């Protein structure tokens, strides 16, 4: 049977929402710097984009520390098990009201697709954005009257990679927000990420998963 379980710790939620906010804020200021629209003015956009970059870096440092000290990093180890089932679930199963192919628990918070995407986010997308961001920001800077330089010839390549990353992250946020509604109830996952508590199925129910699905249908 379902049971209220404490899934997301305080730091985890703080990290998640701060990162969410920072990514959105970086997207808004970033696309203003890109010239896509005019909101707060180019100068403010640059200043706040740079401040947000530092905020994000500090947050990431704490998050890395947290993941390793708590062992939570293991949640992101990718697996090919059930990955096909998960894709099939999103393409067909979900419309039939089929049960989730994997079971969420405190020790297995993510389905295989989540593992893969979040890992990609952590070790690829965000690092690429941070590194290109720093290069963008500091590729030439005066220091003590002398010009220190990484000797990057041009901003162009860095800027284009940074733009690709930005589009990808925005697309991720759209998909991510939508997919939070695919839990048992549409707002279940959102509530869990705010309060930390979520209705999770008991271990006993694993065996009865298919039966549970049938039961749900009846209840519907």
């Amino acid at each position, binding site marked *: 049977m379902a049971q209220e379980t404490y899934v997301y710790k305080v730091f985890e939620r703080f990290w998640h929402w701060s990162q969410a906010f920072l990514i959105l804020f970086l997207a808004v200021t970033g696309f203003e710097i890109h010239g896509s629209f005019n909101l707060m003015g180019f100068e403010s956009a640059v200043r706040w984009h740079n401040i947000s970059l530092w905020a994000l870096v500090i947050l990431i440092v704490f998050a890395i520390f947290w993941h390793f000290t708590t062992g939570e990093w293991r949640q992101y180890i990718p697996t090919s098990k059930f990955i096909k089932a998960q894709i099939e679930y999103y393409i067909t199963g979900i419309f039939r009201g089929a049960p989730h192919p994997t079971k969420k628990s405190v020790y297995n918070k993510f389905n295989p697709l989540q593992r893969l995407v979040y890992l990609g986010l952590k070790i690829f997308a965000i690092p690429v954005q941070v590194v290109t961001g720093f290069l963008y920001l500091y590729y030439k800077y005066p220091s003590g009257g002398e010009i220190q330089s990484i000797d990057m010839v041009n901003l162009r390549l860095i800027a284009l990679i940074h733009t690709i990353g930005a589009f990808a992250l925005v*697309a991720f946020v759209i998909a991510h927000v939508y997919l939070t509604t695919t839990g048992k109830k549409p707002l279940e996952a959102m509530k869990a990420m705010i309060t930390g508590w979520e209705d999770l199925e008991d271990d006993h129910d694993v065996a009865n998963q298919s039966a549970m699905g049938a039961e749900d249908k009846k209840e519907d």
Partner: protein
Amino acid sequence: MKKKLLPFLAIVLIPQIFLAIAILDKPKQKDPKVLEALKVEVQNRPKKAVDHSLFAELQRDFKRPQEITEACLSCHTGRGDELLTNHHWLWERESFIEGRGVVYLGKKNLVNNFCTGIGGSEGTCNKCHAGYGWQDDTFDFTQQRNMDCLICHDNTQTYEKASGGAGYPPSSGPLAPDYKYITANVGKPTKYNCGYCHFYSAGGNNIKHGHLEEALLNTNRSVDVHMAREGMDMSCTDCHKTQNHIMLGRYYGTASNDYNRATCTQCHGTTPHAMSKLNEHTVKVACQTCHIPTYAKVNPTKTYWDWSTACDLHDGKPIEYMDSTGRISYQSMKGTAYWASNVEPEYVWFNGQADHMLVSDSITEFPVKINTLFGNYTDSKAQIWPVKIHRGKQPFDPHYHRILKAKLWDREPGKGGLWVDFNWESSLREGMKIAGLPWSGQWEFVETEMFLPISHMVSPKEISLSCSDCHTREGSRLHNLTDFYMPARDRSATLDTIGILLILGSLFGVVTHGTIRIIAYRRRKKV
């Protein structure tokens, strides 16, 4: 569900605080003490130490101006030697130009895009020479007694040089100088002295430069933040500091090599802004680019000079047309002119090195570049500079592919002076004879342009350029400089299209998926 309040507050409040700071934040300001200290330093000028009216050497009835020079040099020994190698005296400098080697260039022999050059017309052009009697190529540049001390050191503002007098003052008439009064009041050059020549180059106030003009004698902060009368009231020599008659600063339009320039950074340093991002801009952007957003702020400047229409006479007499604002739009002497006020400069890369077209050059590219400013994005010494690009038309020899030099002036008619005889053929023949170059006898007019970097009439910081004057998709001030990537101006259109399609695709995907889910859910419910 316990302890929900604290994390919730943390989650909700922290972004709120961040946003509030973002909205309320004001950009940092530079510590005002830095500028205050500079102001004190500039105002701390030495006072005049002596009263020249008491000197026995000057208690004379001077007949010729050379006698004054001799009197000056009798006390100020060695100053004449200093001036012997000075460009105000020689009107040329030794320069090294890539592709040409060591050359001696200056007003003496260069072509410009206005009155085209002094050759053959020394008698009138050299009114502005710091000497007496340079009227042809026989002038002796070793004779110190022919130096004109007063044109720079007269503090009475009454010393005049005669028109067509080859540097001599008028010997009689209302403008003949009162030497007794003038010699009693000599001193360091004021802006009036410098302006006597530099404001009126190319034949009238502000015609050539667009940022050096008589309005600077009495101006306000919005025109020139340094020279404002009720502000710092600085004079030319406060920046163009001079020791032993070596003036700091050389005109970028005619000086080929990058040394001994007067710069903003000599006082303001290389990190004058509070914001480091702005300081970083100085790597690639000259101070002038942002801080001189427009030139010709008070009086208009000539932007176009078409010689091809010159020599049009009415009933055998030269004519002049003015436009509705009193600017001369046509002169039989000079052809057609366009003027402009409050002009946005054009922008070029410039590393301080320049090349100059010589009359002997064979021209292959049009419009003809009278001078060339070197530099591009990858040149570590080059910065983006504001320039006045003065365009026009000059006579050209289609056979020898050379710009033709016309003789413009003579005291007497019939000697080929264009402004006297209004005859292109004879003035070109005389002009090329003086230049020592062959002429095919044919001429046509070709487009020319000259690049004049802008350095004066610095605006207050409140009206300097802001980020979005350049960092903008449409109408960027730097739209012509395309050899680098600039945020907000540049993008990959393909990449942006793909990115937008990706986002729209994601939105479409989730909306479709969600809609099907809702429909499917309702159907299941009905069953």
